[in-house]
């Protein structure tokens, strides 16, 4: 891999480095922005889903008669009505569109209905009579592993496997199942085109892969299905997999009418995949001077009933199981098991979150054992450009400012002013359960490392088109705006590439442009941004060449200080450029997990300050400060937004967010019992952005969405250990883990 020379920024108002106001701000503030929930079509029907009440059962019979008998019901469809491929899946199509012979998780779709209004549709879904022969669910990951009921096994062996350190620390760690809990649930509208095809508008992070899966299961030609980017209320990984997409299209083509579906919150908890719960065994070896000698790990994640992205999440967990540290002897074994628990897949951090909690606990344990400050131990072993990845052996060629992250985090003022005077700011909050004198304050640090973009040889590309029009430059893309600010940053990149101040992003459907890939893996700024920059700079050069110009700005083309072509004339000429951007190639690993597996990396560090009520086991996260490697900050305020929001989700996983699963059943599928951090739980955040040239992203930018979520959880756990002396080997930390130990 060669590091690209960073492209020159052409001056333009609203270009990169600024934080312009969101172009979608006004409609979102006025309530006129159209989310998938808000879509409407004349003659539209409402869809609803019949779901399995059992985590594992054989379907004996399905009687749709009682549902069809309800007035206003237009269709009740089962697996028999799926004309094409009976299954779907992001990586492996193993999940039935509708279950036929067996249900494998609680809430699995069995039938779908369309009716004239939403209440009738839900009534009909409940009226479908399904006879089940209940089977024992396998919810035990160890049992699944014994039976080799797995999605993937990973084996990483690097360096001398016999080497031993002078100091050895062991640990066992667990991470619970977290939910993305985007505020908008799954929703969509499918409209038949009258010629056997269909237009789909639904919550998504990746419309082209939705379209492919609809095409396969409906048995249509690719040109008959168009998936349109649509307004969505958050994603965080929950929108990568198909859920209602194929169902909507089936119902629309069967009834010949537009069909809309909106999941209720409880249904949303079964309608999308979750963050994998993980169990991890670690052994770290170091020399007395603090040099990390060897890391051994075993990582088990529960993928639930269907594949989703478990194989890739497991791989990521294993690749990043050591963290951002040099180590020449590594042994990692990982397995993603198949059970009858809820299916798990993508969530912000994608496997790196779980192992970060474990490797950082281990680093702290080592630091204690060696009598070295936790940050000093990390600095001594910091992985940086020119080093080899401890797991894959890959040479790190792009900037990896791990030392700068550590140094800057250490230099940030701690602002430790002691527990607050306002008693409602103490761990018990407005419950007023905590005596101020009992509060123990703790400080903890953690670092996290993650890949950017898709890895392991995946052909990761994005197409973007830049056009000059009377409205200014338009960036056409199928990349999804999930809230992160893609509509700002792609326009900024276009401005700085073209040297023009007027640019907007326009989302187009799958028939009008090739894939932008998924809005995930922190990749769109780099990959769709890369396509946008290349298209903009090429277009600028073509225009200059065509007119013999030496400058292009908002007035037009200039030569020798004179305007030779006005901007209106350029707009009329219909200039456009389409570019497909690929990041440096990656490769599948060898049998020892070795190779050039990743395209780029980002590192971040967090320092958490917590107050703990040790008697009641309650925690208040007082502040979380961070330093993050961003390559080049194209939109500093959007990055801060990602950092503050990402930290909040990391704090959620540390102390409150967990889907409670009993016998395969989710016991808390609602916002009353699945606790999301409120504004009173939000810690203060101070963020430093570490900039360094040299990544292949536009102007050297790196993706920024995931790092805030990776090490913030581990930092909070470390702070709780510091405050209480408890081992804290599991997140979310429960009151009994602190009060009883």
């Amino acid at each position, binding site marked *: 891999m060669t590091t690209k020379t960073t492209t020159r920024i052409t001056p333009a108002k609203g270009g990169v480095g600024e*934080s312009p106001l969101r172009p979608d*701000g*006004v409609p979102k503030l006025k309530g006129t922005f159209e989310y998938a929930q808000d879509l409407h079509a004349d003659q539209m029907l409402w869809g609803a889903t019949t779901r399995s009440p059992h985590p594992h059962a054989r379907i004996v019979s399905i009687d749709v008669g009682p549902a069809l008998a309800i007035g206003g019901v237009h269709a009740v469809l089962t697996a028999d009505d799926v004309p094409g491929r009976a299954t779907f899946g992001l990586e492996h199509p193993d999940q039935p569109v509708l279950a036929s012979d067996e249900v494998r998780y609680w809430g699995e779709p069995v039938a779908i209905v369309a009716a004239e209004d939403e209440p009738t549709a839900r009534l009909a879904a409940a009226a479908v009579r399904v006879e089940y022969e209940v089977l024992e669910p396998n919810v035990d990951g160890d049992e699944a592993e014994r039976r080799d009921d797995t999605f993937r096994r990973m084996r990483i062996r690097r360096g001398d496997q016999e080497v031993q350190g002078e100091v050895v620390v062991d640990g066992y760690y667990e991470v619970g199942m977290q939910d993305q809990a*985007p505020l*908008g649930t799954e929703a969509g509208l499918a409209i038949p085109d009258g010629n056997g095809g269909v237009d789909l508008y639904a919550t998504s992070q990746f419309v082209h892969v939705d379209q492919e899966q609809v095409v396969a299961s409906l048995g249509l030609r690719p040109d008959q299905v168009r998936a349109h980017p649509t307004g969505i209320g*958050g994603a965080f990984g929950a929108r990568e997999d198909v859920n209602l997409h194929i169902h909507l299209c089936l119902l629309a083509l069967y009834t010949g009418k537009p069909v809309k579906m*909106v999941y209720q919150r409880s249904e949303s908890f079964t309608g999308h995949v979750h963050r994998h719960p993980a169990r991890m065994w670690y052994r770290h070896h170091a020399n007395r001077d603090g040099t990390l000698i060897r890391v051994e790990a075993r990582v088990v994640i529960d993928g639930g009933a269907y594949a989703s992205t478990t194989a890739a999440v497991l791989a990521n967990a294993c690749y990043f199981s050591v963290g951002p540290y040099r180590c020449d002897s590594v042994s990692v074994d990982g397995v993603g098991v198949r059970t009858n628990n809820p299916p798990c897949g993508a969530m912000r951090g994608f496997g790196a979150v779980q192992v970060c909690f474990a490797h950082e606990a281990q680093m702290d344990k080592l630091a204690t054992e060696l009598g070295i400050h936790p940050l000093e131990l990390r600095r001594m072993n910091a992985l940086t450009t020119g080093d080899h990845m401890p797991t894959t052996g890959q040479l790190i060629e792009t900037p990896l400012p791990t030392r700068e992250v550590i140094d800057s985090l250490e230099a940030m003022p701690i602002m430790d002013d002691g527990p607050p005077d306002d008693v409602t700011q103490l761990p018990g909050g407005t419950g007023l359960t905590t005596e101020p004198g009992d509060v123990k304050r703790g400080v903890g640090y953690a670092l996290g490392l993650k890949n950017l973009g898709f890895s392991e040889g995946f052909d990761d590309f994005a197409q973007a088109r830049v056009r000059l029009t009377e409205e200014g430059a338009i960036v056409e893309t199928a990349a999804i705006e999930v809230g992160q600010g893609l509509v700002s940053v792609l326009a900024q990149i276009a401005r700085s590439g073209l040297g023009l101040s007027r640019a907007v992003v326009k989302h187009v459907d799958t028939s009008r442009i090739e894939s932008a890939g998924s809005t995930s893996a922190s990749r769109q700024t780099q990959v769709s941004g890369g396509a946008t920059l290349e298209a903009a700079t090429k277009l600028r050069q073509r225009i200059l060449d065509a007119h013999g110009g030496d400058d292009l700005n908002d007035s037009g083309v200039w030569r020798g200080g004179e305007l030779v072509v006005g901007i209106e004339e350029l707009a009329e000429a219909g200039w456009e450029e389409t570019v497909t951007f690929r990041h440096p190639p990656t490769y599948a690993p060898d049998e020892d997990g070795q190779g050039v597996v990743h395209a780029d990396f980002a590192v971040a560090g967090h320092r958490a300050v917590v107050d703990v009520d040790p008697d009641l086991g309650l925690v208040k996260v007082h502040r979380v400060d961070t330093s993050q490697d961003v390559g080049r900050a194209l939109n500093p*305020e959007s990055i801060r*937004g990602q950092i503050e929001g990402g930290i*909040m989700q990391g704090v959620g996983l540390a102390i409150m967010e967990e889907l409670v699963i009993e016998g395969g059943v989710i016991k808390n599928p609602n916002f009353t019992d699945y606790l999301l951090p409120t504004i009173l739980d939000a810690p203060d955040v101070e963020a430093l952005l570490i900039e360094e040239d040299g990544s292949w992203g536009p102007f050297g930018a790196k993706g920024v969405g995931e790092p805030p979520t990776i090490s913030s959880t581990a930092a909070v756990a470390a702070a709780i250990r510091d405050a209480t002396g408890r081992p804290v080997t599991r997140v979310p930390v429960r009151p009994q883990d602190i009060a009883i130990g």
Partner: protein
Amino acid sequence: MTVNGQEVTADVEPRTLLVHFLRENLRLTGTHVGCETGYCGACTIHVDGQPVKSCTMLAAQADGASVTTIEGLAQNGELHPVQEGFWERHGLQCGFCTPGMIMSAAALLAENDNPSEDQIRHGIEGNLCRCTGYHNIVRAVEYAGAKVRGEEPPAPDWEGAS
């Protein structure tokens, strides 16, 4: 009832929730449904000037009431100071919680146009946001408070930062 100043008359089923009436009958889809259980606050509107989670109220209960939704907050084409604050201080990302946040914050400022940070946090604690970490939401409400008081809003706290 009146909705955003307009007289609205309709026959509704007794079970119809106010939020569904607004969204489905009046097609005022700026009021969002996030949880159906009164927890997330995305459906917050004003009923007779008071903030109400409209998924917890029947349409029939609003008989005769004056209802304001997010669509009715901007006056004469000008953004309400809270709307302006959320835009200027990057107080939104996906925007799904934003209408409810704005309605709660507007009700808070109507009672107290100079709230402390604690009062802001307690004033909108019934509204969940999954994207922002809430920091910029507090700044947005501070901005709006200053505008309501006729003062210059505080400078953004990122200016001069790296």
